């Protein structure tokens, strides 16, 4: 690489201001610059304007003020095509892949190698292999995207950008959807890119990750830049203070649990018949009043199927699930929520958690619209509606203009908060939570954890699944590990249990005796 490229930043954004059409100021006079060969972190609370800034760099949003310099020369980037031409690539928060197409087809989309008027499929496969070998990111070019694990899909996204010659790679919360193992693998890949002289812009809510691989960090707060720092020179406390504006309490006080009667009973639950391998294989456990049971495991080992069976999203094929003695297989989803008093926070919040074309207040209160407090003879009581919505927005610090905005205008983390606020704000017997803090900033994560503890102390039975080992250890009173659809370990208490030990069960290296596993079930 020439020295000229080293002396000027790869990209410089100067005085960037972005005001969305609804008047939200997402960025205000932001300066941002990255060099070749560095991994540059962008941090900030939910709604701080990180995604917006990156979308402008990738030509997906237009800025209202400011300029972008590419290797010192001013450029205007009005579309992703123009960004790609400048060798900028972006891996989005949600995957931009076509599930029914193969890896190779996704790779070459819009830059297809041709043989006459036809696509040269062999060449597409060859090119995919070539790029994947060059960067040491192994991939099967003929695999269908729909069949791939999340981590591999992300690798395809990165390869897709590299195939288009990207030298500057933007990754918007790439680790939010990854397991710890996949995250380690991603970091290995990013370091390879850095060695090749590429630039990586890395957005994450996890300070630990930034400390691990980033060189510099830009911190955003309320749409403004709080400065650029060398990661090695700045402490975790300083980062969170700059982001939030005040100290974030890192350790919450958690009282010991005092469990009561059993609320959720799962007996001999099996699922996935007729599709080859079982997704759930003879699962037995229970959750009592006033305790938090955690599920640990590498993603894709049956956790999702389990939670969807419990919440009524999947039909129970074999075995028994009862909530306070009510057979779940005989209840509609409405009855599970209303009669059995169960709340459910799904993993895919955009797909199952919100109606994205509805307003914030409608989404916040969708689960209680037919309550006397909110409607009479089918007509909504607007006043109570607005009042409660406002309270929830405040309590859960949802960053928005007002309660009548559409949910799809919120930032990723704030959409999550809407779902969490709706599900945690009603008296429930059982709460099922899939990935409580995915995509949520540190402050809000702590708030949600605190809320979960409060609900437990008030006597709610809570079942939590999280791919984040640190989080699941912090939340759970007791915990079981799932591997290939089975419970392979159960820990009544987590005292003295290390992450390494859990890891051995999660990877299927070890398995407890049937007697030990039976402990997970209480009559």
């Amino acid at each position, binding site marked *: 690489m020439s020295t000229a490229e080293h002396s000027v930043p790869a990209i410089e954004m100067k005085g960037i201001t972005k005001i969305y059409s609804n008047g939200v100021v997402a960025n205000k006079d932001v300066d941002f610059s990255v060099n070749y060969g560095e991994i540059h972190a962008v941090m900030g609370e939910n709604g701080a304007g990180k995604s917006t800034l990156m979308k402008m760099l990738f030509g997906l949003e237009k800025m209202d003020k400011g300029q972008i310099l590419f290797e010192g020369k001013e450029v205007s980037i009005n579309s992703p095509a123009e960004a790609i031409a400048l060798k900028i690539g972006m891996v989005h928060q949600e995957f931009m892949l*076509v599930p029914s*197409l193969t890896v190779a087809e996704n790779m070459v989309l819009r830059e297809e190698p041709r043989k006459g008027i036809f696509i040269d499929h062999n060449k597409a496969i060859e090119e995919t292999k070539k790029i994947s070998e060059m960067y040491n990111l192994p991939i099967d070019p003929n695999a269908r995207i729909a069949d791939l694990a999340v981590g591999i899909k992300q690798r395809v996204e990165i390869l897709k950008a590299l195939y288009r010659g990207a030298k500057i790679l933007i990754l918007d919360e790439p680790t939010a959807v990854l397991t710890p193992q996949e995250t380690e693998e991603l970091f290995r890949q990013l370091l390879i890119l850095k060695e090749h002289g590429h630039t990586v812009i890395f957005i994450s809510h996890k300070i630990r990750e930034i400390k691990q691989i980033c060189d510099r960090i830009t911190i955003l707060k309320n749409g403004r830049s709080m400065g650029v720092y060398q990661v090695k020179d700045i402490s975790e406390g300083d980062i969170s203070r700059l982001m939030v504006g005040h100290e974030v309490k890192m350790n919450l006080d958690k009282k010991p649990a005092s469990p009561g009667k059993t609320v959720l009973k799962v007996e001999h639950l099996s699922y996935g018949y007729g599709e080859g391998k079982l997704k759930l294989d003879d699962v037995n456990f229970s959750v009592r009043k006033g305790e938090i049971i955690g599920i640990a495991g590498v993603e894709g080992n049956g956790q999702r199927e389990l939670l969807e069976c419990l919440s009524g999203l999947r039909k129970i094929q074999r075995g028994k699930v009862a909530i306070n003695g009510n057979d779940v297989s005989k209840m509609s989803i409405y009855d599970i929520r209303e009669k059995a008093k169960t709340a459910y926070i799904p993993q895919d919040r955009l797909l199952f958690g919100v109606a994205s074309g509805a307003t914030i207040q409608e989404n916040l209160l969708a689960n209680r619209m037919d309550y006397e407090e909110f409607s009479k003879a089918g007509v909504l009581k607007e006043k109570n509606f607005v009042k409660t919505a406002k309270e929830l927005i405040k309590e859960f610090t949802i960053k928005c203009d007002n309660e009548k905005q559409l949910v799809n205008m919120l930032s990723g983390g704030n959409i999550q908060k809407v779902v969490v606020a709706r599900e945690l704000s009603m008296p429930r017997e059982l709460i099922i939570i899939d990935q409580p803090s995915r995509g949520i900033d540190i402050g809000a994560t702590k708030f949600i954890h605190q809320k979960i503890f409060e609900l437990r102390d008030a006597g709610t039975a809570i079942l939590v699944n999280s791919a984040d080992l640190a989080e699941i250890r912090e939340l759970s009173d007791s915990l079981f590990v799932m591997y290939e659809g089975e419970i392979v370990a159960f820990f009544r208490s987590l005292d003295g249990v290390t992450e390494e030990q859990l890891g051995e069960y999660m990877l299927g290296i070890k398995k407890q005796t049937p007697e030990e596993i039976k402990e997970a079930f209480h009559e």
Partner: protein
Amino acid sequence: MLSSFLSAEFFYTIIRVSTPLIFAAMASLIARKGGVTNITIDSTMLMSALTGVLVSAFTQNLPLAIFCGLVMGVVMGIFMGYFHIMMNTNLILTGVAINTFTRGATVMILYAFTGDKGSSSLVKSLAVGNWDIPVIKDIPILGQIISGHNGFTYIAFLSVIFTWYLMYRTPLGLRIRAVGENSSAAKSVGENPAKIKLIALAFSGFFSALGGMYMSMGNMSVFITNMTGGRGFIGVAADAMGRGNPIGAMLASLLFGTANAVANVLQINNFPVDMVMAIPYVVSIAGIIIYSAHEQHKKNSKIKKAIAEAERGEAA
């Protein structure tokens, strides 16, 4: 009557009446792959059928007439796309508006040019003739069934092959499929989804036009008001039944065509006309219901079998 079903003539009829359905199914398939369910196929057929007839009547130039009919189809496709994609209007409302409009417009145009509101029989329009296939035409039975069809019929079968290659072998097909399935994925690699959708709808209009012109310039050489009789919609159903595969859509079209041919025979044999006319439509609906019920049943029984097997294994 049974003999009418077993004759070569009956099979010839199936192919004949399936022709517009195949065109409509291909029109639907390409649009649907691009993420747009095109409910204006029927009215596009009607517009092109009329355009071809009028141009040929007034110029006596068949190629020019076909060309104008095709242009009309493409324009209708893009018209639909323009409102739905560029102006962001609701797909169903736009479709219904266009359908309602064409219904009136065809009658009005017909009247303006011929002075008749029912058909174009007052003017002399041209038509594509029937083509004999050398060698095959001399094979007994087979020759009678597949030779001597209208030119458009052969084009219909060629268009199935064309559609397959377009969708699965060309860059454009790949992009249409990508845009239809996940338009943000296409956008993220710099593609313009609106453009691709418009192209898909232009193709959709093109095939609709062929289907329409077959009716007024092939099968018959006259335009009759509402002569498509909902065939465009049956094409959409055939495409749905074929699950997005051109060959499957063609087979489904032939199935509906068979129902149509049966109706023809029954009609000749003095069955009540109204009931007979309903047969193709009833078969369409029944076909879809049976098909999806069958799929569901297959899945359920597979699960039950697997559970029973597991239980036997545990008992042993």
